[in-house]
């Protein structure tokens, strides 16, 4: 049985102009010890998924539909108190821009000790200290830097401390939301290695969120591509990145700049961001898709299977047209 099973999840934010469906009827699952990556446009709902799995949605947000089975029990119905017990123990999250979220006036080690104490009130001081040392060792922060304040760390060190904190309670699932975006490529490389090592050694499952497809391709075995609150393609990384199906995935891959890209690379037209408030259940990429057919505007798309693991949320005709067109 999968460790996490999300079924038909829809999450909405109340806004002045109406209900904004940031996550719209998505389903995915993840096995123990595997890594699942979410990629997609800025604003497509990636962080919202993470916050939902952590029970940390802001007040104007709510789960409108769907179930979240973690290890057999449904999280969608938990109350605040149940969430507090659960959070950090079984699932922990490395937040987007977490580097700035550390408390500046508390020493780094104390912040981690506090995280452990909250969830393990029975643990002795000596055991906790031992645990902290092991964690820092795991993320390669020298022992003599344990008592520093966060501002004395470089960006990369702060981010590694955050990872140590996320590991503090041996979670079975870690959600990493853009854990390396603020870092330079060399530090990024170290952190990604760290995450992969932890996933292997501790058999932790990882949900990895990033808009950087090369980073996700490096870390994750399975991929979900999102657009406008929906998953539009899923599959193993080789399938999605080597044989992309959905027109959005293709656009995304084509826009990726590499050191060999030439200056005349085709730039997609400015896309009108999908309107998540007036969304009508039809394909939200239709407005920007160059294979769009009449059907795309009148019918809701469905899952087209390429293999047992590889699927796109589109129409067979559209996918065919797309293949012939290129």
């Amino acid at each position, binding site marked *: 049985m999968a460790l996490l099973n999300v079924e038909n999840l829809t999450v909405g934010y109340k806004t002045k102009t109406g209900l904004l469906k940031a996550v719209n009827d998505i389903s995915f699952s993840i096995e123990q010890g595997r890594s699942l990556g979410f990629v997609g446009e800025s604003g497509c709902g990636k962080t919202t998924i993470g916050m939902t799995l952590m029970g940390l949605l802001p007040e104007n947000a709510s789960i409108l539909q769907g179930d979240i089975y973690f290890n057999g029990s449904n999280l969608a119905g938990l109350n605040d108190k149940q969430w507090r017990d659960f959070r950090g123990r079984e699932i922990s999250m490395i937040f*987007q*821009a977490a580097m*700035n979220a550390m408390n500046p006036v508390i020493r780094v080690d104390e912040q981690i000790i506090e995280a452990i104490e909250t969830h393990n009130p029975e643990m002795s001081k000596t055991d906790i200290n031992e645990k902290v040392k092991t964690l820092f060792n795991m993320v390669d922060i020298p022992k003599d830097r344990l008592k520093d304040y966060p501002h004395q760390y470089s960006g990369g060190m702060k981010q590694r401390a955050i990872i140590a904190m996320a590991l503090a309670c041996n979670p079975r699932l870690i959600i990493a939301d*853009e854990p390396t975006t*603020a870092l330079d*490529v060399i530090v990024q490389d170290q952190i990604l290695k760290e995450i992969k090592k932890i996933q292997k050694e501790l058999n932790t499952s990882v949900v990895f969120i990033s*808009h950087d497809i090369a980073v996700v391709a490096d870390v994750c075995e399975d991929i979900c591509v999102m657009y406008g609150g929906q998953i539009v393609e899923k599959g193993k990384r080789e399938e999605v990145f080597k044989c992309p199906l959905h027109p959005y995935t293709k656009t995304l891959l084509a826009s990726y700049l590499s050191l060999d890209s030439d200056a005349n690379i085709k730039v997609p037209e400015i*896309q009108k*961001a999908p309107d998540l408030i007036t969304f009508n259940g039809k394909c939200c990429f239709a407005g920007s898709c160059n294979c769009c057919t009449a059907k795309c505007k009148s019918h809701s798309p469905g899952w087209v299977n390429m293999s047992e693991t590889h699927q796109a949320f589109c129409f067979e005709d559209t996918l065919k047209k797309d293949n012939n067109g290129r």
Partner: protein
Amino acid sequence: MEDKEKRPIPVMELKGVTKEYCLRDSFFSRGSTCVIAMNNVNLAIQKGEIFGLVGQSGSGKTTTGRLMVKLENPSKGVIKLNGEPLSNIQGKALKSYRSKVQMIFQDPYQSLNPHLSISETILEPLIVNKIGDAHSREQKVINTLDIVGLAPAREYYNRYPHQLSGGQRQRVAIARAIVLDPEFIVADEPTSMLDATIAIQLFKLLKQIRKKYNMAFLFITHNLAAAKYLCDRIAVIHNGVIVETGSTNVVIRYPQHPYTKKLIETHPGFNF
């Protein structure tokens, strides 16, 4: 020897600029530790040029940008805008300087005022600089939101930063920087939060702005592929010292400094 008269005056020039930060070790000790964030930096950026500054975390990139927009002053050396040194400008001249030189900050989570709505954030520079009337300002804000891809503008107009995703916040920061049509923009890792399709559209946009208004940019990044796509020339900075400068293609094809070589090596690719 080149004739001095014929050389165009750079929009932005740094001559022998050094910036030192000194921190007291603690309240009670008298010792202090100093960090040299920039060490004898020389740079000249021409009108209409997109100039890349590449380097590792902590190498002094943001500091360079902060000095250019005069958020801070150099410890040593001179900074010139269109040939005019700006060491002593104050009052009106400073205000006018601030409208001509803009900065897009690295971290939109910190750089946007959480108490201002999106429209207020972008209106503010227009109001401060007394540009246009209420109606034309509003139009300008809507156009600018459109340019940076926050469309339909009305959906974002009255929202607050916490109601936006990370990438949307960064687009607001970019809108705020370009709304005054400045002469020079420091863009500090402006796309590190954006996905590829939007990043490349923004690069295209920056290129268009450059062409149309002959605007110049300092583009700070550690993404060499982005620098290669966007920049005419780049400088590589390491521990506050510029270790390599040249046309982007040449530097990437024939890197001299070990750090530049390492950047090229670790550049992420699809090799699984």
